[in-house]
């Protein structure tokens, strides 16, 4: 028929067009490429950029001191991919970096939703992956052989928040009977809520509000009204920076009173950009649980140099995420040094045998980095701080609490401040 010629020629054109995207040739260079997928744009961009900066600072230090001796002084070259805060983009970027750059090891990706997917890709390609910042429990519960996580699992975070509340209750004799939960609706927030629910019930708290909000929410009037309506005595929230800013501002405007405080499990509340964007009065007395000891520069003076470099690069000092990026690169350095090779299997075995008990990799405040059979560091722990007159001071574990720090408990109502 007449039409046939048309389609078939068009098909031919199409088929030839399909050849056009050029394959990028890879070049082999005598350096160690470390791949890193992070959220460099999108809702979690701040944390991703901080992690990236920490990694860069660590790599700079290592290269300045002569690179990796066991590999003939090879320098570390970081290759970054942007997950755009989206899991499928992260997965795509992981594939691209592994395929095109032939990296022997990777790290990232901060967001649990993204890391869950990227570690699957890495597992398929038998490439070791060092997790940075992601807490979703499932990441080290899948029987994967190539995933290693130095930081907290979500269940540790939830546990630590409740332990802090319990400790303060014991110290003062007063504490909350009910808890409200408001979390962001992706992997991180939801898994935190799941853990909290279980642990809180075990400890006898009543959960009067349990809600997640979809990503991209910019108005919390309805949720804040709900909190006023249900009157939880303590609130636990899990929010990334932009949502946290709006929530904190609106709670401040609305004079939201929660007698035993708002307990934020990090992310937004660990981000210096958050503190710049909200009125100082709005964050007074807020509790923040994070992987990092916020006042570490006072406890471990060697970290001040890193803090200074951070200030030079980002305009603010060391953050939890920056420390994670820094720690990750030093951990990888330790692993490569013991592996003595770029072979992925040897690197994997070196990971398994990791036992770091001193050095820059412990900038987070942990005492040890080692990995159990699921790839989880059992010695990971975080700290809980309270914001006292603009300064965040560690109040839990009690052993980490500074001499003159006295937590405020219960929290004064707005009209009494």
């Amino acid at each position, binding site marked *: 028929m007449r039409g046939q010629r048309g389609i078939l020629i068009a098909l031919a054109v199409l088929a030839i067009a399909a050849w056009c995207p050029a394959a990028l040739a890879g070049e082999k260079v005598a350096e160690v490429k470390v791949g890193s997928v992070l959220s460099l*744009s*999108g*809702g979690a*961009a701040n944390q991703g950029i901080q992690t990236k900066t920490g990694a860069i600072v660590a790599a700079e230090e290592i290269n300045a001191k002569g690179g990796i001796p066991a590999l003939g002084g090879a320098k570390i070259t970081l290759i970054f991919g942007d997950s*755009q*805060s989206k899991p499928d983009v992260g997965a795509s970027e992981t594939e691209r970096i592994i395929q095109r750059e032939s990296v022997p090891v990777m790290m990232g990706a901060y967001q649990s939703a993204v890391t869950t997917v990227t570690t699957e890709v890495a597992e398929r390609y038998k490439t070791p992956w060092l997790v940075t910042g992601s807490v979703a429990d499932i990441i080290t519960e899948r029987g994967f052989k190539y995933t290693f996580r130095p930081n907290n699992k979500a269940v540790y975070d939830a546990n630590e928040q409740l332990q802090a509340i319990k400790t303060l209750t014991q110290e003062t004799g007063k504490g909350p009977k009910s808890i409200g939960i408001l979390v962001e*609706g992706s992997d991180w927030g939801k898994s935190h809520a799941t853990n909290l629910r279980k642990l809180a019930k075990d400890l006898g708290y009543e959960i009067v509000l349990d*809600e*997640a*909000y*979809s990503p*991209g*929410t*910019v*108005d*919390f*009037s*309805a*949720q804040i*009204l*709900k909190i*006023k*309506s249900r009157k939880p005595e303590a609130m636990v929230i899990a929010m990334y920076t*932009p949502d946290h*800013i*709006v929530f904190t*501002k609106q709670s*401040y*405007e*609305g*004079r939201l009173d929660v007698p035993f405080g708002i307990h934020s499990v990090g992310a937004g509340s660990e981000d210096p950009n958050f503190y710049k*964007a909200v*009125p100082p009065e*709005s964050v007074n007395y807020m509790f923040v649980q994070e992987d990092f000891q916020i006042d570490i520069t006072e406890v471990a003076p060697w970290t001040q140099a890193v803090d200074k470099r951070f200030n030079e690069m980002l305009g603010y000092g060391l953050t939890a995420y920056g420390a994670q990026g820094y720690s990750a690169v030093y951990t990888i350095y330790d692993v490569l040094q013991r592996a003595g090779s770029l072979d992925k299997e040897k690197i994997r075995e070196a990971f398994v045998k990791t036992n770091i008990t001193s050095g820059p990799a412990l900038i987070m405040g942990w005492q040890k980095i080692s990995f159990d059979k699921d790839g989880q560091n059992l010695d990971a722990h975080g700290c809980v701080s309270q914001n006292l007159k603009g300064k965040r001071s560690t109040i839990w574990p009690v052993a980490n609490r500074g001499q003159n720090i006295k937590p405020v408990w219960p929290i004064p109502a707005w009209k009494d401040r």
Partner: protein
Amino acid sequence: MDPVILGIAVVNGIVLGGLYGAIAVGLSLIFGVMRVINFAHGSFLMIGLFIPYWLWLLFRIDPYLSMLVTAPALFGLGYLIQATLIAPLYRRERAMVLEPLSVLMLTAGVGLIIDNLTFMAFGPDFRGITLDFASKALWIGDILNINYTRLIAFLSSIAITVALSLFLGRTDLGRAIRSTAQNRDAASLCGINVMRIYNVTFGLGCAVLGVVGCLMIPFYLVSPSIGLAFGVRSFITVVLGGIGSIPGCILGGLILGVVESVAAQFVTATSASIFSFVIFILVLFFRPTGLMGMKV
């Protein structure tokens, strides 16, 4: 459910709803006059939010003042888009049967371009400004509070709507616009330059968005991704209120605002918008002219 909480939810809904109404007014005008579904409506609002944002960030210009810049800028943008991109489709209409969906897809394309150029330029982050008085609120009793910036936005939205109605009813240009809406060919026979009226109307619809954007930026975060959601919500408001009715727009906005705000107390707050869509569908099926619309 505590009646006080319910009452507060209703008040919150009214305040936000008035704003939604003002956002939709431009769309109602454009659709009423030109039968164009402007899929880029939300994208124009997004620009209307970015301009005062940047003016404040770079020069510390008060957003209420930057209306003087934003509204004309958006008028110009709307005029330009209508004159250069949409007008040719009208001319073609005389020759062949025009698929009304072509205009819809054209404006969708425009929206895509605007949204993504902005995305490329500014990134996906949500940005806001912090005015000094932005944290203060009007307190009624101990528990009901309305943030001042939102209150200003609400009252101004009503004012804009009234002003627009007066403009359409009392001025020559307004009458010209209305007559073009009623019957294009008759208006043309009366000596009205129909294409110019179209350009002006589109510009006007966008200028309103410029004003609203300046009202919103003190309390609303802007990002390149908000366009589509606002555009869709504006359609719902217009249909609910009735095509071609400016007061209907405000009424539609108020209803949607209150319904969503109250619903958010019972279901997950972020799923409350489902009710808006349900209302939209019901209105389209059972009362397509909307609450106050003229027979189309």
